[in-house]
């Protein structure tokens, strides 16, 4: 026990307000050996981030932390004085956060922020500057000396996360806590960031605690996994065991909910007919400033078809959706085959479902008000209750405001809103990216069911190939604004495709394949991984 980097026994955290007290972590115990990677998996609200904060000794206002033992790097975190706590944070641990853009101070150069850690150790200015450049170099940032004088908003998400990693590892901590480190990053960047962490772990020998809702990611990185459900550690074991033979009902549910890249959808593809297009897009282009976001994209969207659009962030996929919906000005042509324009009264032709239902629902309108208004605007014939039932929403939810709903319920409301009346085309822009995996599966089911029932055409935009494969009849791949591939789904996964598409598929497959790999049988050519498996 004394050799563990982390030793947690019966950790309990509760938040209390003046009226009530909620226990969010309920008696969690685990150990992490030096150099080991331990993963905590759970959905939002399961208490996993709270555990991470408890390990750093950071106490959120109103939180009560108790434990039989909470030892990190040989220190009892609960027993440290303020100054001891600061020294402990400065030397023993590093934390990488979920949203690097928000974890970095927007008004300080990234170099200054990394240098702070060295200055804290007592290094003088010149030394700290040189060490900062070295630290930025180590995390693979280009031209680190110049890079240090840039501000966070001038970097991409992946670069920001590398800066945060450089900052966390600056003074060689014994424990690196990774709190959803790649959520919000693209599949390719995610692979790169995780590979970087794996590689640095070999070099520097720190232990990691990886916290994520993404089970395959955790399984790929960690030797042991703990599954958290509402503050209770319901299962723990080796990564392969948990992923391949989950024993607890909740873990089974998590594993089952994973959209599997290997399995195609069961959709009846005969119903879709791309030769009878609903929408024809010709030469669609869009520039922001001097930067080309969309470059001469031409395609058709068939009646009754689900067209998947994939690409990394910055590939122009969201711009494509917005142009299609008429939300931005663009060059080129988007024309509907039928002359809907002559419908009286004029009704919208397009509806959109956005990534974040929090941002797309008016916080001061109840679900009933949202639905009633949408039915009126879209010329629907049903009632509010019928709309709720058709999207699997409990009628009791109708009187609630958005903040009283869960993430999945909110997204259902946003989807229902788009289906309130007869609309020929629905555009979904990353509709499940902000949701937990189990909820994600249900929302995808709902979208599929609605499509079959109503026969509308769908444009489904996502960075997640597995999700798109499950739903789409055809997939278009966008890269730097250009449509590099457009093919029926199965053909795209098996056939002759653009090099970029291939790399996209490869990194998606890799991410999942690593998940089921047992550490002991790592491929021989797989350098550092074989190394870690010893």
């Amino acid at each position: 026990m004394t050799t563990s980097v982390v030793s947690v026994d019966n950790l309990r955290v509760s938040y209390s307000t003046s009226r009530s007290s909620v226990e969010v972590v309920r008696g969690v115990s685990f150990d992490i050996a030096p150099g080991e990677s331990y993963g905590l998996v759970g959905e939002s609200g399961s208490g996993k981030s709270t555990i991470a904060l408890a390990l750093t000794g950071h106490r959120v206002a109103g939180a009560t932390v108790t434990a039989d033992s909470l030892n990190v790097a040989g220190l009892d975190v609960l027993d440290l004085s303020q100054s001891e706590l600061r020294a402990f944070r400065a030397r023993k641990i590093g934390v990488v956060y979920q949203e690097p853009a928000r974890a970095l101070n927007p008004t300080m150069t990234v170099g200054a922020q990394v240098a702070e850690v060295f200055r804290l150790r007592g290094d003088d200015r010149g030394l700290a500057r040189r060490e900062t450049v070295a630290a930025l170099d180590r995390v693979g940032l280009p031209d680190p000396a110049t890079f240090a004088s840039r501000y966070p908003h001038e970097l991409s998400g992946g670069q920001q996360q590398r800066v945060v990693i450089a900052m966390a590892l600056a003074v060689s901590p014994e424990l690196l806590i990774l709190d959803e480190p790649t959520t919000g990053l693209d599949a390719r960047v995610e692979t790169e960031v995780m590979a970087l962490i794996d590689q640095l772990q070999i070099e520097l020998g720190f232990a990691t605690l990886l916290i994520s809702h993404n089970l395959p990611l955790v399984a790929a990185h960690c030797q042991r996994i703990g599954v958290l459900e509402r503050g209770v550690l319901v299962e723990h074991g080796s990564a392969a065991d948990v992923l391949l033979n989950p024993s607890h009902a909740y873990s089974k549910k998590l594993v089952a909910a994973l959209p599997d890249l290997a399995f195609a959808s069961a959709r009846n593809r005969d119903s879709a007919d791309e030769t009878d297009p609903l929408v024809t897009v010709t030469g669609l282009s869009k520039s922001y400033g001097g930067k080309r976001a969309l470059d001469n994209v031409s395609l058709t969207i068939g009646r009754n078809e689900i067209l998947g659009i994939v690409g990394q962030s910055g590939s122009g996929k969201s711009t494509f959706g917005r142009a299609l919906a008429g939300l931005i000005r663009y060059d080129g042509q988007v024309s509907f085959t039928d002359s809907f324009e002559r419908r009286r009264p004029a009704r919208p032709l397009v509806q959109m479902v956005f990534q974040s239902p929090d941002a797309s629902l008016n916080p001061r309108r109840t679900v009933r008000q949202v639905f009633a208004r949408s039915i009126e605007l879209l010329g629907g014939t049903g009632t509010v209750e019928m709309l709720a039932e058709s999207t699997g929403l409990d009628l009791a939810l109708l009187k609630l405001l958005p903040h009283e709903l869960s993430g999945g319920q909110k997204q259902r409301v946003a989807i229902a809103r788009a289906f309130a009346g007869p609309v020929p085309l629905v555009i979904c822009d990353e509709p499940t990216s902000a949701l937990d995996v189990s909820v994600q599966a249900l929302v995808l089911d709902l979208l599929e069911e609605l499509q079959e029932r109503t026969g509308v055409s769908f444009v489904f935009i996502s960075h997640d190939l597995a999700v798109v494969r499950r739903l789409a009849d055809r997939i278009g791949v966008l890269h730097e604004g250009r449509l590099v591939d457009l093919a029926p789904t199965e053909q795209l996964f098996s056939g002759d495709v653009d090099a970029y598409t291939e790399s996209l598929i490869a990194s998606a497959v890799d991410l999942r394949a690593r998940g089921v790999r047992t550490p002991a049988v790592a491929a021989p050519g797989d350098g550092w991984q074989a190394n870690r498996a010893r």
Partner: protein
Amino acid sequence: MTTTSVERRTALLGLLGKRVVQIPVVLLVVSILTFWLLQVVPGNPGRNALGQYATAAQVTAWNHDNGVDGSLVTQYLHWIGGFFVGDWGQSLVYSTPVRELVLERLGNSLLLGLYAFVIMVPVAIALGSAQAYREGKRSDRAITVGLLSLSAIPEFVVGVVLLLVFAVWLRVVPVQSAAGASGDFFDRLRVMTLPAVVLALGYLAVLTRMVRSGTSEAITSQFHRTAVIKGLSSATIVRRHVIRNALVPTLSVLGIYLGTLLGGSVIVETLFSYPGLGALMVTAADRKDVLLLESGVMITGAVSLLALLFTDICFVLMDPRIRFNARETN
């Protein structure tokens, strides 16, 4: 020189260049509007200046000499031409050159406004940040209620009460601040304190509120948490991670207030008989002193615009994200 600092310097120079063009254009439009609006005020400037016993011929001659006869366009061109070469004309009411009058009063107003500003800003920052660190506690609410009540009371009421207390009962300051324009530095400061405090109180509530929300946003932000978990001391966190981010939203309000304060305040100047620009403008408008009013408006406008420019520059220096380029938002 790194690329980013070059970019920022270009942004700053671009901003300055743009303002150098914008400011004169705005002032020109303001001067035309003021000139035109003044025609609504009844009365003949020559008659106002010479009194009721002057003959019609004398009035006409006076109007001609002072360039206030003929068509509106000729009058305006005459005035603006003079204004640019430093000949601002003769005040119709005071019979002294407008330039001296305006610049002297402007000096007084600038001094008073600056004094009020110097009192107001530290107090607002201290109160606002103290509130943010005590958010939701009793002291936070007490300060909010106190400041809002203060700002709900009109300036002249607050002024009169303060005059009663400090000038009439305690006799630490004079009732009239007219002497403030002369005398040695500490005398002037003593005389100006009461009007400056009254001016500052008027804006304090809103400013404190801004500081409070800015600070509260900064200390609940994720980068603040990052700084805490880095192991930095509280003092370092405040100095390096809070102040700048907390004050960025406040800065925009501050620029507007600075301009308003420096341009002179009618109520406070009148109440304390302080010889500032605000009181002078009221007299000029009242007596249809076209030339005086025009020059006064131009100067006040210029001061406000320069104050805004000053805050814009501070903005660029404080927040690297700020760019003043129009950009398509979607």
